């Protein structure tokens, strides 16, 4: 298996928890005899080398006939570059992170699946949560990284607000460069705009920097802040955050969620992760772990269909169709358009004496189907058709206990 993630550069703050999870999960799978008696050998590729290098590595690994599946990639940019290559090489590829809703928007792929949700459900969930806890919001500001993921999230945030609460005014829209070491001027600008709510999908080292710089300057105590990928940095900067910051896990990967707590395999994963890496797994760890367990399920399905003959790449892709499988944190369903259906968990920071950092409380779990546009429909047009009364039909913050 080729496994692609960032192990260098500022994105490694998000990529390494994915790689750590892959190591643990594959060790566990191999200790139990592998998949159908075959041990899995991971080959890790660093996405920090740039897209050209990533594509070249992908081609090199795909040329090895022993290589059965690719788990690629973290960066949406790399995913968009790899998908056509995977298709051309007929290489079963499972996108473990890859949030961009543009992946399956225009192109149809036979060999590419996304084992996670996409930007649309992920950021709609943030707005739904915001309007449930703060229905009187009048002004909002956005600070997202300046590339497709940040721009898309900004658009989805604005379009969802426009559909559900059209009178909200966007008073500042900032897109600092990805990998900026300092956000101090942006923080002043946000303070000056005095919005009721600040939305951000900053992630990795950028998010850590932003929180470190913004918290002492009291940005988090002036209004509501939504950190859509906030859970991934709580353990590193959480002591700086006050209670009540809306944080998401973009998906359902939260190690203390009721689903995770009820699953013995998850509890074991969390415990061994904490023992080896000296911290709790964050949601990128679960995106990776859930993908690997889904790929294992696909192999087992193919083996059963094949009456235990080892599946070819074609057998594997055939088995992935319409898969519905239990993951460490819930259920993953692969739609006929190859996109994943995953629930969305959102919560707020709460202090818990058992942990030296705030954890997620007042959680809600939005069902995947309620927040994901149906296959084949332009997602932005779908958002525009959302009605404010949709909130009444959805579970409330605090209902996921």
């Amino acid at each position, binding site marked *: 298996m080729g496994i692609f993630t960032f192990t260098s550069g500022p994105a490694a703050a998000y990529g390494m928890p994915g790689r750590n999870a892959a190591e643990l999960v594959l060790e566990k799978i191999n200790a139990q005899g592998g998949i159908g008696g075959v041990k899995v050998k991971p080959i890790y590729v660093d996405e920090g080398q740039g897209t050209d290098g990533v594509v070249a590595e992908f081609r090199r690994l795909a040329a090895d006939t022993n290589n059965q599946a690719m788990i690629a990639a973290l960066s949406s940019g790399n995913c968009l570059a790899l998908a056509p290559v995977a298709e051309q090489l007929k290489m079963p590829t499972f996108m473990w992170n890859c949030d961009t809703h543009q992946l399956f928007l225009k192109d149809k792929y036979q060999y590419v699946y996304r084992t996670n949700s996409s930007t649309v459900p992920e950021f709609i969930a943030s707005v739904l949560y915001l309007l449930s806890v703060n229905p009187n919001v009048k002004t909002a500001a956005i600070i997202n990284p300046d590339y497709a993921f940040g721009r898309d999230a900004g658009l989805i945030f604005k379009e969802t607000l426009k559909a559900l609460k059209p009178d909200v005014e966007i008073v500042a829209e*900032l897109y600092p460069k990805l990998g900026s070491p*300092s956000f101090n001027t942006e923080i002043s*600008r946000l*303070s000056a705009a005095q919005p009721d709510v600040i939305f951000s999908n900053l992630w990795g080292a950028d998010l*850590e920097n932003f929180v470190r710089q913004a918290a002492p300057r009291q940005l988090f105590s002036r209004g509501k802040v939504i950190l859509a990928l906030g859970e991934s940095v709580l353990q590193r900067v959480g002591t700086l955050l006050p209670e009540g910051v809306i944080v998401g896990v973009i998906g359902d990967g939260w190690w203390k969620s009721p689903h995770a707590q009820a699953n013995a395999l998850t509890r074991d994963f969390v415990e061994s992760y904490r023992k080896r890496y000296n911290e709790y797994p964050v949601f990128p760890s679960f995106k990776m772990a859930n993908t690997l367990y889904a790929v294992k399920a696909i192999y087992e399905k193919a083996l059963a269909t094949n009456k235990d003959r080892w599946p070819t790449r074609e057998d594997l892709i055939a088995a992935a169709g319409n898969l519905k499988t239990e993951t460490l944190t819930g259920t993953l369903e692969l739609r006929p358009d190859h996109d994943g259906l995953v629930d969305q968990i959102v919560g707020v920071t709460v202090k818990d004496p058992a942990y030296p950092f705030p954890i997620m409380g007042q959680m809600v779990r939005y069902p995947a189907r309620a927040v994901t546009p149906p296959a084949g429909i332009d997602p932005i047009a779908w958002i525009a058709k959302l009605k404010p009364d949709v909130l009444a039909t959805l579970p409330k913050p605090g209902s996921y206990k």
Partner: protein
Amino acid sequence: MLSAYIPLVVDGLADAALIFFVAVGLTLVFSVMRILNVAHGSFYALGAYASVVIGIWLTGRGGPILGLAALVVSPILIAVLLGPLIERTLLRWTYGRPEALQILVTFGLFLILEDAQKLLFGVQPYSNAAPMQIFGISQIGGIVYLNYQLLLIAMAIGVAIGLRLMLKHTRIGKLIVAVVADQEVAQTLGIDSSRVFILAFSLGVFLAALGGALASPTVGVAPGLGSETIVLAFAVAAIGGLGQIEGAALAAILVGLTRSAAIYFAPEFQPVAPYLVMLAVLLVRPYGLFGSVGLRRI
């Protein structure tokens, strides 16, 4: 109405201060040794890493006030350890050779130092925010600033004045100026130019590492910091005129203010702001604000 612009100016100057430390070191080394040191950004990153690691160690032993010492100790350490070593082994060999070769050698050094950082510190971001919290906060124009940010502006002004005084009024400064003016004549007068080179290069390393160390409490220190910094430092040095201390200061202020103005009024231009300033200046003055053809000054 005017008061609305005060935060913009404060942000711009705080930004300029950090750019200045690294650009002035780059420009000083170029002025004395005629070398465009691509590895200069790595010294900034190393200063930041060293300051975080030593800072956390010192804070653990004597509290955050002692941790502050790391901000000065680490750049001195980096300069003393790496300055003479790199000048003696690597750079000395390139003097008088084609510029392309000098750039290749310093680029190679940059790559080695980047990998060395990964080897030593891994890829996760480091941070030590204690120093910026010691000094508390102030309100300017209704916006909360860390006093540490204001202190940085004062430090940059101090370094600019200190450098100028050193070059004008100290023995070593006068030796540097003499070597810059004419190395051969300086040597015939008995000035040991190779010692001046070591000192000037180490001073450049110190200034870059000082910039990194002072930035470290407010920025996350992660791989990539060096390359981010060197690109900006080159832009600032080019705007100011290569080898010009006052030029670097003015260019840093211009770039800092333009970046913050962009964030306030046209955020989409923020990433390209330094290069727009560079374009505008170089179109009118191809040798930079303070630069001139053929004349070697400092």
